């Protein structure tokens, strides 16, 4: 925030009180747009003619004061402050013809639009709530007549129940992706199980690829998954202190052997 946004020394007592009242209220604002709208109203003009530059300065001053008073500000307010500072600079600087981005005027016009739209929604919300309402201003039949009933069982379910039911199934722990071809996939667990049973025979350094299970060496997709799983499993066994692993240079074959007892 630039210093010129805030001149603490020139504030009168009443101004300061007003400012503090505003700040104490910060929780009362529903976000930066709400605050901007409130500030905009203090300009006492048609929202369509509100000075966005003036509004940006008011907002930045507000944020500066809030920080001075060590009021915790939500990130939203700071993001808006940064954006308004940027907007201010675009409005004040002469337009750069090489600049591709939207002009300061465009950005300001959009902000003015957002404020006007929010105000409009507040106005119609008030009009809506001011309408005659059922159960308050007008009333339904108090004594509905029972229709004679011939019984028939019907089953009912609500959309909520349906969606919750679905969510319940899809969030179960044993959830497995639906229709998944696992024939050509070796998991690390499978490789680990396999290797644990064979470690005893690995006294000498041997190439990792020789550990691939039969039938997984030829098809490229199967070889890839088997190699990855076997490599991951051997790392796990190294970590457990059961295997040793070496590679003489980059991209040369990886070799493993059982860790000698020492």
């Amino acid at each position, binding site marked *: 925030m630039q210093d010129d946004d805030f001149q603490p020394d020139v504030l009168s007592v009443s101004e300061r009180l007003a400012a503090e009242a505003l700040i104490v209220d910060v929780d009362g604002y529903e976000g930066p747009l709400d605050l901007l709208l409130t500030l905009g109203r203090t300009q006492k003009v048609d929202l369509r003619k509100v000075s966005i530059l003036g509004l940006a300065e008011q907002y930045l001053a507000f944020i500066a004061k809030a920080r001075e008073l060590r009021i915790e500000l939500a990130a939203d307010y700071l993001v808006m402050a940064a954006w308004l500072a940027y907007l201010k600079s675009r409005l004040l600087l002469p337009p750069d013809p090489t600049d591709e981005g939207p002009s300061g005027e465009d950005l300001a016009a959009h902000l003015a639009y957002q404020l006007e739209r929010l105000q409009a929604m507040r106005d119609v919300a008030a009009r809506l709530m001011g309408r005659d309402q059922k159960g308050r201003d007008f*009333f*339904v*039949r*108090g*004594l509905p*007549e*029972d*229709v*004679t*009933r*011939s*019984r*028939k*069982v*019907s*089953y*009912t*379910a*609500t*959309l*909520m*129940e*349906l*969606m*919750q*039911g*679905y*969510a*319940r*199934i*899809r*969030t*179960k*722990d*044993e*959830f*497995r*992706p*639906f*229709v998944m071809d696992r024939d050509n996939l070796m998991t690390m667990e499978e490789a680990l199980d396999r290797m644990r049973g064979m470690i005893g025979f690995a006294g000498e350094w041997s190439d990792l690829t020789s550990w691939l299970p039969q039938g997984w060496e030829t098809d490229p997709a199967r070889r890839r998954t088997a190699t990855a799983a076997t490599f991951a499993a051997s790392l796990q066994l190294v970590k457990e202190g059961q295997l040793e692993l070496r590679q003489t240079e980059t991209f040369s074959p990886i070799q493993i052997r059982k860790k000698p007892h020492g």
Partner: protein
Amino acid sequence: MADPLETEREESLFEAPPMGEQERMVEAVLFASTEPVTVTELAGRMPHGSEPQVALENLAKRYEGRGVRVVRVGEAWAIRTAPDLGFLMHKEVTETRKLSRAAIETLAIIAYHQPVTRAEIEEIRGVSVSRGTVDLLLELEWIRFGRRKMTPGRPVTFVVTAGFLDHFGLESARDLPGLKELRAAGLLDNRPPPGAELGFGDDDDDDLDPDDQADMFEDE
């Protein structure tokens, strides 16, 4: 008619409203009350100086020959259907029962994954689907048989019906919200389930063949 009355009423708080207004008041109170209303109670509710007894009699006359009548019930008054129209009040009622959890889940899977085979439903639910469940859903006309799947055995599939969409207020099965949206709407607890980050629900929609979806309902 209302205007002169309205001003008259303003002039004196203690002046009773004109009889036409009193009749309106009695009409509204009888309509909205959950029990028959006595003259005393009407007098208590209406502006000072009102004559509910007269208003009631006028109202009763006004309703003569109409579809409803103003009738006396002991010491009180009520509005009731004209006896000759009783046949309209006969309705097939419909003892409503909630669908079982198994049925809801099966229905949900069909709605989200259609067209779907029984084996696929069982795979998703993790338990077998009873015959009764599928039969019930078929009988309710919420599901029907879809196209056979072009896989070995050519199993039948299930799809949801237009009746299903109607019951659940949906315009199409594609409008069903995905899991992310259910959570956002607060319909799920916040515990992130395993695999939730994969964003299924939405992804599953992509599995559906749009053409398949479109002609799903046209032959209803």
